């Protein structure tokens, strides 16, 4: 029941982010560049939720996003799911207690998502390859995402551990016994 409520909350969070991204952040851009809150959300899901729930959830939300405003259905879904997988791998190997680690994870997730999305766009939609302008936008986007992560870090950590407990249970660190 708790897990179902969390999943429903995540879907609601997705729509809140969608409307924030579509309306609020169009007024608050850095050099005309928007942040990508969906990447932060996918990373959050990957870090704190189980793979078996996180991947289908982000796949579903990604497809929704593609239907709402995407050029081709599936592109956002693939990339957001990939970020969930990467988030799971990072959670295994790095501490989530450090602000710096979370910031570095956000940078990595943003870079992987945007580069992957851009490559898919080039391959499937014939988008022109413009490396320098792409890199410039990506740098600003990373900066924006990092700023938002720093601001929301206490909330991410608090809610994250609550979700982790619900999905993964409290793990005993056998190494220290």
């Amino acid at each position, binding site marked *: 029941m708790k897990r179902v409520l969390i999943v429903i909350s995540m879907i609601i969070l997705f729509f809140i982010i969608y409307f924030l991204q579509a309306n609020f952040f169009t007024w608050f851009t850095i050099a005309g560049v*928007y942040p990508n809150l969906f990447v932060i959300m996918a990373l959050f899901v990957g870090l704190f939720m189980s793979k078996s729930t996180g991947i289908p959830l982000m796949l579903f939300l990604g497809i929704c996003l593609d239907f709402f*405003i995407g050029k081709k259905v599936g592109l956002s879904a693939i990339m957001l799911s990939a970020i969930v997988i990467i988030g799971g791998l990072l959670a295994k190997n790095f501490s989530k207690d450090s602000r710096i680690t979370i910031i570095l994870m956000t940078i990595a997730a943003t870079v992987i998502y945007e580069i992957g999305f851009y490559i898919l766009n080039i391959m499937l939609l014939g988008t022109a390859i413009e490396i320098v302008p792409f890199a410039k936008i990506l740098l600003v986007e990373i900066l924006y995402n990092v700023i938002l992560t720093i601001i929301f870090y206490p909330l991410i950590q608090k809610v994250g551990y609550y979700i982790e407990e619900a999905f993964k249970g409290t793990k005993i660190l056998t190494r220290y016994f």
Partner: protein
Amino acid sequence: MYNKKTGIVGIIITIIILILLVFLSNISIEKLSAVENIFSSIIMPVQNGLTYLKNKISGNDEFFSNISTLKQENEQLKNQNAQLEQSLREFEIIKSENDTLKEYLNLTEKYSNYTTKAAYIINKDLGNYSNIFVINIGKDDGIDVNMTVISEKGLVGHVISVTNSTAKVQTIIDTSSSLSATMSTSRDSLICKGTLEDKYCLRATYIPTSANIIQGDKIETSGMGGIYPKGILVGTIKSVINTKNITDRYAIIEPAVDFEKIETVLVITK
């Protein structure tokens, strides 16, 4: 003795000369023209030659002394020439604009041949690398995929997907968008694509090497490609970027439509 005689002769000669002078001075000059002619025929050729030389020298002297004045005059003339050239260029631009405006007038009449449906933009793209939006009309209103979307100022894009009540429009400034266009004055064809360099501008490529690209020239759809009808205004040439290889040169086009402020569009249904 000798000295006394010489003195008397001298006095006599002087008196005779004086008498002659008195006599000659009382004769009018006309009566002496014959004598004058004789003198003139002897003196004038020499005098003429000397006058010629004098004039020549004084003329050259004037030339050298007037160099600075001539330079100033030259500068003035050059400025006048530049102004005239500028006026000519402006005149040519005005002429071209006049022709284009006449074409637009025809275009407005041409638009009247199309059946259009007005729509509001209800959602805009969330990403930094693409530019699409959603409009509030769909299949129920007769909207279908690949229909052209315009605004009162020019071309906006085309419909890429449609639901019963909404339609997704890919704008011409989207990085995946590509359209065939022509320059309104020279009629040279080019390909316009969305670019990441400037989110609200287009990049015109495949410009023929012989094409004369004029800044400010209007760009309109060529009608090729099967989506956009011919003659819809796309934008104006903002700048031309020349590369080492002329075939790689490209132009930045400022769209006629302000994509930042656009709120309503027209979908050409027929």
